[in-house]
């Protein structure tokens, strides 16, 4: 049976992992290659790198560590952050990444999804959606019942800073038609809170698209991953801080999920 995937996420700036580095036995904390290897050895099913570098040397920097990671690990990994076109995507895919994620560029220019899928195959193209709950009933938006009332999910761009008025669920359905091979759905309400994933958001998208959905934002304890797999119908769960700070290392999370009856890779 297809296993649910556990996906640690690493934020990279100028070639260094910048968020939460607490593997005490690492020689070079912050080295993306070393951290990727560490997670891979621990049993992570896949990795995501989000590159926040703001520099005209970004491409060269990315090429370097992506190649290093590809040589060091033999599990799949995705690279995102500022990928705007075929040339950006080729830069990371030809350096050894398996998938690229596109976010703001896809919202601003949806046909880029089709261009990328045509060149590299849709299995390489992850569309990342940053969504925030909007409580204002608005015509034409898909409204969902949640424990805190009716909401719709609004796409935010530029790292979650800019509301767009676009319905996240409708956008996912459109992006799938354009060629998205997978979705990385981040709840801006939950990101950083450790209160658990946004189950309603994840389920709303997962039930309406026929490609895999990675849930992101809010993981604080292993139970949250269980909830998003079972209730949220996620295919994969992404988390950062619970792994980085060694609070719940990957094997601990996997053991817990396995005991709870979730199909997890040994």
């Amino acid at each position, binding site marked *: 049976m297809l296993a649910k995937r556990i996906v640690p996420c690493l934020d990279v700036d100028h070639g260094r992992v910048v968020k939460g580095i607490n593997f005490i036995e690492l020689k070079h904390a912050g080295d993306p290659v070393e951290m990727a290897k560490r997670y891979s050895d621990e049993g992570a099913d*896949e990795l995501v790198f989000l590159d926040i570098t703001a520099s005209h040397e970004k491409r060269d920097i990315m090429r370097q560590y992506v190649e290093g990671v590809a040589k060091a690990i033999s599990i799949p990994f995705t690279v995102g952050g500022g990928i705007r076109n075929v040339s950006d995507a080729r830069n990371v895919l030809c350096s050894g990444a398996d998938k690229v994620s596109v976010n703001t560029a896809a919202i601003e220019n949806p046909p880029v999804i089709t261009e990328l899928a045509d060149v590299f195959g849709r299995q390489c193209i992850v569309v990342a959606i940053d969504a925030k709950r909007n409580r204002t009933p608005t015509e034409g938006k898909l409204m969902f019942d949640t424990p805190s009332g009716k909401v719709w999910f609004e796409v935010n761009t530029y790292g979650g800073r800019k509301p767009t008025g676009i319905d996240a669920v409708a956008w996912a359905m459109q992006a799938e038609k354009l060629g998205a091979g997978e979705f990385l759905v981040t709840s801006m309400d939950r990101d950083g809170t450790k209160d658990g994933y946004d189950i309603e958001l994840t389920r709303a998208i997962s039930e309406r698209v026929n490609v895999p959905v990675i849930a992101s934002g809010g993981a604080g304890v292993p139970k949250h991953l269980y909830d998003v797999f079972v209730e949220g119908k996620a295919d994969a769960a992404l988390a950062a801080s619970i792994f980085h700070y060694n609070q719940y290392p990957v094997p601990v999370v996997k053991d817990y999920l396995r005991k709870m009856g979730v199909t997890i890779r040994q």
Partner: protein
Amino acid sequence: MPKAVIFDYGVGNLLSLKTALEKADFSVTIGTSSADLADADAIALPGVGSFTAALDRLDTVKETLQKKVSDGTPILGICLGMQLYFESSEEGPGAGLSFYQGRVVQLPKTVKVPHMGWNTLNIIAQNPLFDGIAEGIYVYFVHSLYPAPKDPSVVVTTTEYGTTFTSAVAKGNIFGTQFHPEKSGDVGLKILKNFQRIVVK
């Protein structure tokens, strides 16, 4: 050290496969022409791109490739690379390499496609490529189509996803996996090492 040539269809990531084959004790080059294939001890057909586009790229080397393979050079097709072994594909027009009889078909609509992630192998037949690989082990898949061989005796492993499909084939020196050994951690590396042992023998 045996020399493996990875055939390059001109798209996507070959670095992972190159690195993995190197870890399995091959010296590896990337090839695009008949001349590149000439002195290969082993050939790897990677798993990127689409059926029709890949066949176009293979066109100029097709005869050399078929000759090498009929002379006994071990070949490993991965994902799309294995699908090219068959006669035709629902993905697009074109005649495959026809190393195997049968057709490549779409996964059922009842499951999410692409089939992406770690899934298990049922070992159907013993084969040296899978020496030391246990029943039920997880390997990494990314695909939307799978091969339906006419001859059941070529099936080495199957996997469940909406249906029971053929996830590895072998016949003489022609090996293929629907999953990606180069992305399947230690298990995948073991399979590639087995391939190396087959090549050296």
